[in-house]
């Protein structure tokens, strides 16, 4: 079964036989509803705090409206909750600041993240917003892996980055909208940088 078609709700009851599971309902900004187990929610610090603060009973969960997540679309949220259900109960890694950081991408995560770059960046954005540490780790690792052995031009394509010219043009347009003199100042600054900014790197 492909990951894309896998149910968000985990039906493997044998995993937690005794405890009665509570499923919370969430809604994406495009009105897609998801049911997510309590244990899976614990992977997200943001959502975990939210449901704790709400203190819903099992009746509330069914009767009250779904909890809205206004910044994330359904397609992204589906991936997020699939990931949380698969990794529920796992310890949340603590960043002790040690470098280099070693993160392995498990097979499930690799398949889950076999998506276009636009969606991958949305997933990173969501993992950061919902504070899902390990999902942020693996998705960032995946994005980092994409950079290996690429030239600046290739990196721009992969990461959808603007060139310096486009970057400056956008900045200038934004500044000019505010202050017409900004362009002159900017040009002078760039000229100075060109004169004194030589470096091997």
């Amino acid at each position, binding site marked *: 079964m492909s990951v894309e078609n896998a149910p968000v709700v985990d039906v493997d009851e044998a995993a937690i036989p005794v405890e009665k599971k509570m499923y919370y309902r969430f809604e994406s900004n495009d009105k897609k509803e998801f049911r997510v187990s309590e244990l899976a929610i614990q992977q997200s610090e943001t959502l975990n705090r939210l449901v704790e603060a709400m203190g819903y009973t099992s009746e509330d969960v069914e009767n009250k409206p779904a909890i809205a997540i206004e910044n994330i679309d359904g397609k992204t949220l589906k991936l997020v909750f699939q990931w949380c259900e698969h990794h529920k109960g796992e310890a949340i890694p603590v960043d002790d600041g040690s470098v280099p950081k070693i993160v392995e991408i498990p097979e499930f995560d690799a398949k889950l993240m076999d998506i276009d770059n636009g969606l991958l960046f949305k997933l990173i954005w969501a993992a*950061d917003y919902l504070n899902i540490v390990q999902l942020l780790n693996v998705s960032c690792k995946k994005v980092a892996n994409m950079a290996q052995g*690429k030239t*600046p031009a290739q990196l721009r394509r992969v990461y*959808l*980055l*603007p060139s310096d010219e*486009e*970057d400056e043009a956008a900045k200038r347009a934004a500044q000019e909208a505010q202050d017409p003199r900004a362009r002159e100042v900017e040009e002078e600054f760039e000229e100075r940088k060109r004169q004194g900014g030589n470096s091997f790197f």
Partner: protein
Amino acid sequence: MPSYLSNIPQVALKEILCYLNHKSILLLRKTCHSIRNSIDNLKSDLHFTSIHFQLTPYNVFIELFYQGETYEKCVPIWYIKTENGCEIRCGTKKIHLENEDFVDIALGDYELLLTHQNMTLDWFKLNLEYFHLDPLADTKVLEPIAQKVLERTETILTRKDRPLKTENFRMTVIRQEQAVKILKMIDTKSLKLVSIHGKTLNPMIRMKCDELEKLEQWKKAEKLELWRFNFVSPIEKLMNFEEVEVFFEMVSMKDVLGVKKASGCFPSYMDVRMLYSFIIFLQSSKLQKVSIKCNDFNDANQLMQVLGRFQYKQSRYGERKWSWFFQHSNSNHVLCITHISYFIPKPNYFEFLLLTTEELTREELEVLQ
């Protein structure tokens, strides 16, 4: 919703950068201004394992080491003074920058490297090579440049959010204050070895270490190496180290006789500091190994008479070793004194090593006193 790398949250960008090697990060800096600014603001680690900086009057040589897939690799970069500017060489790449000063360009890059270094370095080396080709002329040329390098390095290290971490610290200098300036900026917790080198040519300079001795970094380090200069501080100052390697010029026979008078029953041929180290060694709780190098030592025969039974070994490379073993009266500790010399005139070495009786071989036990 933003899907550009330049628009993702800083936390995520920081996370991505921590998985990238220096090549990818430096290339990414070249893609656009906003990413370069973000990378510089985040000061993401370039994952170098050692950073070496060597200054001569006519070039700067930076060596950057990093962990490859199987072994450690090195990026060597030369900044060479030319008639009308500076030439930068790295592998097969060559760039010439007109009207640019080689030291300024090198320091610009050095700043980037040190600012981004968060990981504990294996080695931090900063070598001011005063005696490159012509000692007198070079010293004059190098003095103002060396000053500039030291001041800039100090500023870079001061601006860092956290002190630079390195296990091994080495500087080649001609004055104590030059080493103090940089060593004081290094993180004390990670530091294990302090290694200070003097100049390479004779006569050997005398260098005080009184200012260095005040530094926390000096007090906390486990090992000390003082090479190519005559160590003039009393040897008691070295008691906080576990391993010490120092150099001093041996005194003349006349001085030696004076010591004999003063010291009574102690081995008479040693100079004052040799004698001190002998005593201090037994008193120190930390010291495990002291190596002393000296220029002149012509009285090997007398040494044998005074120290008694010894073990003699000769390697096929011309190294001759005499070892004496003395049992400590109140413990099973054994002080091993080794004198190493070569057939060809090279410095003599003395090594004081603290062992236990269990560590001795049968041959060594036979000569134990």
